[in-house]
């Protein structure tokens, strides 16, 4: 019958209209600035740089390999490699980013930088209230603004952070084992060497390779 569907539809909207005044589950609006709901764990918006420990400069995981810069589709990352080496969180001398800028007005939150990073140094943040009055410089974040602690990462993405920590610990164990093996091998070599060529080389040269091998491992 013509018009039946229209009447049914009018009934439906009338029910919605009346229902939104009486039933709270119909009205699902969260009135944002006053009311907030906790973000889900998979929330992500812009990347940040993870550092271990308490000092952001000393603990920075990033080694300025520039993979993220090259992979970034909108090219919002700008990295300048350092010319010198500084010890990282583990005490190894590493190249570090002299500059690490992300223009978050360009960033499209694709997370590709996170996926390609071999050092677990860049992760996605959940901070979204980033509006600023300065539309050019205000959204261009340097490495100081981008650096956030591993604890922060644990707070925003607990599952992912735990996985990352487990992986890093595993790698560290492996690296330590390798270093140890290399050290023992070097030590054995050093122990064997003096017998063969003690008069040819000074003892200092046989001592030097051992710590280097430890570092490389």
């Amino acid at each position, binding site marked *: 019958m013509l018009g039946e569907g229209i009447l049914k539809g009018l009934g*439906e909207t009338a029910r919605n209209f009346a229902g*939104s005044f009486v039933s709270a589950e119909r009205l699902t609006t969260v*009135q944002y600035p006053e009311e907030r709901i906790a973000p889900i764990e998979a929330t992500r918006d812009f990347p940040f740089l993870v550092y271990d420990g308490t000092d952001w400069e000393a603990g920075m995981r990033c080694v300025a390999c520039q993979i993220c810069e090259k992979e970034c589709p909108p090219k919002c990352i700008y990295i300048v490699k350092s010319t010198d080496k500084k010890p990282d969180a583990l005490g190894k001398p590493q190249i570090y980013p002299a500059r690490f800028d992300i223009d978050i007005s360009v960033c499209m939150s694709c997370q590709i930088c996170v996926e390609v990073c071999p050092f677990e140094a860049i992760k996605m943040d959940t901070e979204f209230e980033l509006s600023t009055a300065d539309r050019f410089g205000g959204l261009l974040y340097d490495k100081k603004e981008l650096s956030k602690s591993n604890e922060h990462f644990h707070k925003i993405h607990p599952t992912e952070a735990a996985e990352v920590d487990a992986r890093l610990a595993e790698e560290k164990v492996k690296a330590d084992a390798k270093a140890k093996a290399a050290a023992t091998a070097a030590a054995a070599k050093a122990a064997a060497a003096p017998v063969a060529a003690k008069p040819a080389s000074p003892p200092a040269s046989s001592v030097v390779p051992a710590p280097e091998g430890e570092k490389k491992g």
Partner: protein
Amino acid sequence: MIEKVDQIFVILGHWLVSFLPSTLQPAAMVLLGVIAIIATFPALFALTVLLERKGLGRMQNRYGPNRVGPYGLFQPIADGLKSLTKEDIVPLSADAVVHFLAPVLLVVVVFMGYAVLPIGRNMTLVNMDAGLLFFFAIGASSELSVFMAGWSSRNKYSLLGAMRAVAQMISYEVPLLMSSVAVVMMTGSLSLGKIVDAQNQYTHGLPHWYIFTPWGFAGFILFAIAATAETNRSPFDLPEGESELVAGYFTEYSGFKFALFFLGEYVGMMGISGLGTTLFLGGYSAPFEVLGFVPSWIWFFSKIMLSMCVFIWVRGTLPRLRQDQLMNFAWKFVLPLTLLNVMVAGLWRFMGDGWLRWAVCSAILLLAYVTMARLGMRKEHFGPRSYRYAE
């Protein structure tokens, strides 16, 4: 006392005018009426826009505007200020003069319609003998302004919107007129005042409104459909279909000119609601004889606001029609039924009192409705699709 309250605006007008020399009094009285209309209806427009935004929100299970003032009540003021302070952009290749004139013409034309509407007892600005004709003549010129806007903008969306608007408005003008013809036949007058007087009678405390007769009821429904289409209102809002035409004929308007189009649309809706009220819902008369003590203008405005609420309700419910559906509906369904309704009105007039004319007239209209609906909704089977060159 009741009489005084009912006539308060008329008395006030006469008192204000009495300070002037008698030669100027008629002109001053008309001017006062014009000012009253131009002040009242935009205020109602603001109220309607707020109602619409809040109402539609509730129908979609959200709050609607609730930030400006308590419960968002000052939202219309904020909207008005915003549109006043916005930049007024005229496209470089637009016909600047016509581009400027279109919204002005729309608003002027839309307000002129109120000249003949009886807003309350003795409260008609110009009591014309052919008031209905005047209203339709004026109403038809709003098409001109729509086309002016679309053509002068030099924008394909504007032009397409204007073409759609003109096609639609001309198509629905016919059923709009034909459904009012039945009322004119019963009353024997084109004067809106006389049409209201004819309905302003009561038997057993119930009014003689035309909507309470078979032909009046059918006429009212058809009038409402045609009026919705005539004012480019959802579900007939193809001329401004956002999904395909940006904003239709006023795509290229910004700032206050846009606000004028918006105002024109809503004031036009109120005007046509006022006409529908006058023709079928007894104008300013009370729905029950016992409520006769309430001032007549209150009834008129409540009936207008009620029909605006129905407009909003329909907008919240129905999706937009397709252009071919729109045209088919106008020419194959609404128009034949209005023609039949004119005939039924004639039959009603000459069958005399009694239950027989109720039965006969209702049966004819109901039968016609069912048959037309069946025919219109018949599924056409085209069979399996065959291709000539593909495959």
